[in-house]
């Protein structure tokens, strides 16, 4: 098993190796995280005091910088006082994997500290709702506009230059404006996700639709399709699978606007949960909540990807051609061909004028 088996340029990897690498892609960061968390001499910049000794401001359980601890220990030794004791720890904002893993479960089961606060599942639900409405409103407008831009030069020229300009305006910049216009609850948050998604959506979908194979449109035209029927029967089906992929990517973008959107007005959803937990210094919950966004995003994407293969079966290009067109014969002669497949006369010509057939009376000279 040489290096080239793994690293050959554009060399296809067998499924086992692909699986190994996929697992490694998660295991490697996890391993780095574990090493930093559990091996004391890698980082652990603080000392947790277990015995204050002769240092008067030290307290049991207090965490102190290693340099400061060393200095105070030296001072104590010099003064002949009892030397303080402690062990190396990481800062509280750096949580080890097991704590975060536990928090994935306990964050759901722990009731909120204040009766006014939502449970975690309620926070998540709120976030998903915000994303959903932001993305749906954006798509209701963006999808048809994108398709029109990709199909008709008229719409492309009328809309794309402005959209091209507008998409450079950062969505969060509209936060204050959205709150002023739409109040402090969910509408401004949905509006921010809309602004962040919509303009990209029109351009991306427009580009995808523009890439439809012109030969397919020409073929359809020679078969009698024209106007809107060409759009409905050729352009849209030809690009729908790619549009679907675009939508999946755009949904991912919508998630990146979520946190910004939820800070606008009254803080809500998963962002509120994260801020609140950070305030309580429950950093394990903070990591878990951030991780949950990733898990939800990845699961949604994988589900949609799978759904795509169900919806668009012609995109599954794994199967080989149904059967070879010709057998490996040394010579191809017309008579063998004739025998092999003489198509039945299902559509007989209305007038049979070939030289080997009886002639109609009118054709006789």
């Amino acid at each position, binding site marked *: 098993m040489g290096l080239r088996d793994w690293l050959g340029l554009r060399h296809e990897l067998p499924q086992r190796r692909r699986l190994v690498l996929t697992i490694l892609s998660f295991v490697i960061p996890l391993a780095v995280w574990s090493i930093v968390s559990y091996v004391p001499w890698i980082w652990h910049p603080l000392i947790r005091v277990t015995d204050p000794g002769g240092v008067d401001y030290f307290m049991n359980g207090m965490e102190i910088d290693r340099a400061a601890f060393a200095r105070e220990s030296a001072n104590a030794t010099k003064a002949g006082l009892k030397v303080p004791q402690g062990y190396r720890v990481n800062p509280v904002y750096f949580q080890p994997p097991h704590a975060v893993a536990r928090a994935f479960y306990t964050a759901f089961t722990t009731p909120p500290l204040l009766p006014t606060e939502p449970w975690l599942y309620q926070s998540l639900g709120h976030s998903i709702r915000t994303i959903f409405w932001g993305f749906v409103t954006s798509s209701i407008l963006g999808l048809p506009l994108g398709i029109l831009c990709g199909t008709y030069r008229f719409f492309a020229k009328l809309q794309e230059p402005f959209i091209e300009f507008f998409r450079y305006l950062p969505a969060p910049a509209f936060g204050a404006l959205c709150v002023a216009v739409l109040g402090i609850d969910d509408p401004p948050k949905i509006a921010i996700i809309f602004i962040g998604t919509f303009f990209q959506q029109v351009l991306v979908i427009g580009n995808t639709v523009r890439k439809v194979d012109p030969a397919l449109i020409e073929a*359809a035209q020679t078969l009698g399709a024209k106007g809107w029927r060409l759009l409905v029967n050729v352009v849209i089906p030809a690009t729908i699978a790619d549009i679907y992929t675009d939508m999946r990517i755009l949904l991912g973008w919508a998630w990146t606007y979520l946190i910004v959107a939820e800070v606008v007005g009254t803080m809500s959803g998963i962002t509120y949960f994260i801020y609140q937990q950070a305030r309580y210094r429950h950093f394990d919950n903070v990591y878990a909540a951030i991780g949950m966004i990733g898990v939800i995003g990845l699961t949604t994407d994988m589900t949609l990807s799978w759904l795509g293969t169900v919806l668009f079966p012609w995109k599954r290009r794994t199967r080989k051609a149904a059967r070879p067109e010709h057998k490996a*014969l040394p010579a191809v002669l017309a*008579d063998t061909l004739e025998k092999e497949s003489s198509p039945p*006369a299902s559509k007989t010509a209305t007038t049979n004028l*070939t030289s080997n057939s009886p002639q109609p009376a*009118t054709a006789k000279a």
Partner: protein
Amino acid sequence: MTFTPLKLPDYHEQNPEVAARFRRIRERPVVMKVRDLHKTFGTNGHGHVAFEKMSLDVHRREFICIIGPSGCGKSTFIRIVAGLEDSSGGEILIDGHPVSGPGPDRGMVFQGYTLFPWRTVKQNVMFGLKMRGQDTSTADAEARQWLDMVGLSKFEGAYPHELSGGMKQRVAIARALANEPRILLMDEPFGALDALTRCKMQSYLMQIWKKVDVTVLFITHDLEEACYLADRIVVMGTNPGRVLEVIENPMPRPRSMDQLISPEFLALKHRLDELIHSPAETEEKLHLIKLTQAGDEVE
């Protein structure tokens, strides 16, 4: 060793049967009339000339091959007939009606595979029928008949990507014919296929054409293909693109691959060779630096 060329008959010579057939063809109504059609790319009169003024009458159920080297404007011509491109002047009449834009009366089979990948084989064949407003069950039944005709009934539920190149083109032919066009335009339809498959497809096409009332305009750059298929061969030349000669194919029908060694065939092919491979082109000497070391000459 001296090479004595075979004594070939004149390619104008037709046996009585063939001559009678051409007389009959000429008596049939004209399906397509091309009058002074020409095309120049670019504007202001100093653009690139795709092809000079050409005129052609195509009779009902005639099989016309247009042959010529690349750049002779043959593809542009057929695209203009299909209505996919505009001409720079002249006119095309189909059954007396001038062509404006693409329409179902002129079916087309392209060189590239243009089956709709999201439709199954049967749905592809149904496309034109549905566009015509036929209801699904009628279109379904008709599509099955056409698939049966090209021998692909078993694959009606398959998607195009599951088919081989030759099968795809057979579906494309069925799809074009299902619309019952007055004229079937074929733009190098077998150009992308391997030699064996191409042979087979030519034979399939002959069989289909025998059974369907359709006029065929077939573009190719393959001399043998033109000889095997055509009633008349329109030979085009380059610089500028123009019609060099319209030849009545002296080979009798039904044709078979055996005829590819007959004197008529050789005479015809010889003439096509003369027209297409002008001496100036073939005689061109390449200036090569000698890179060989061994003393032996290759020839």
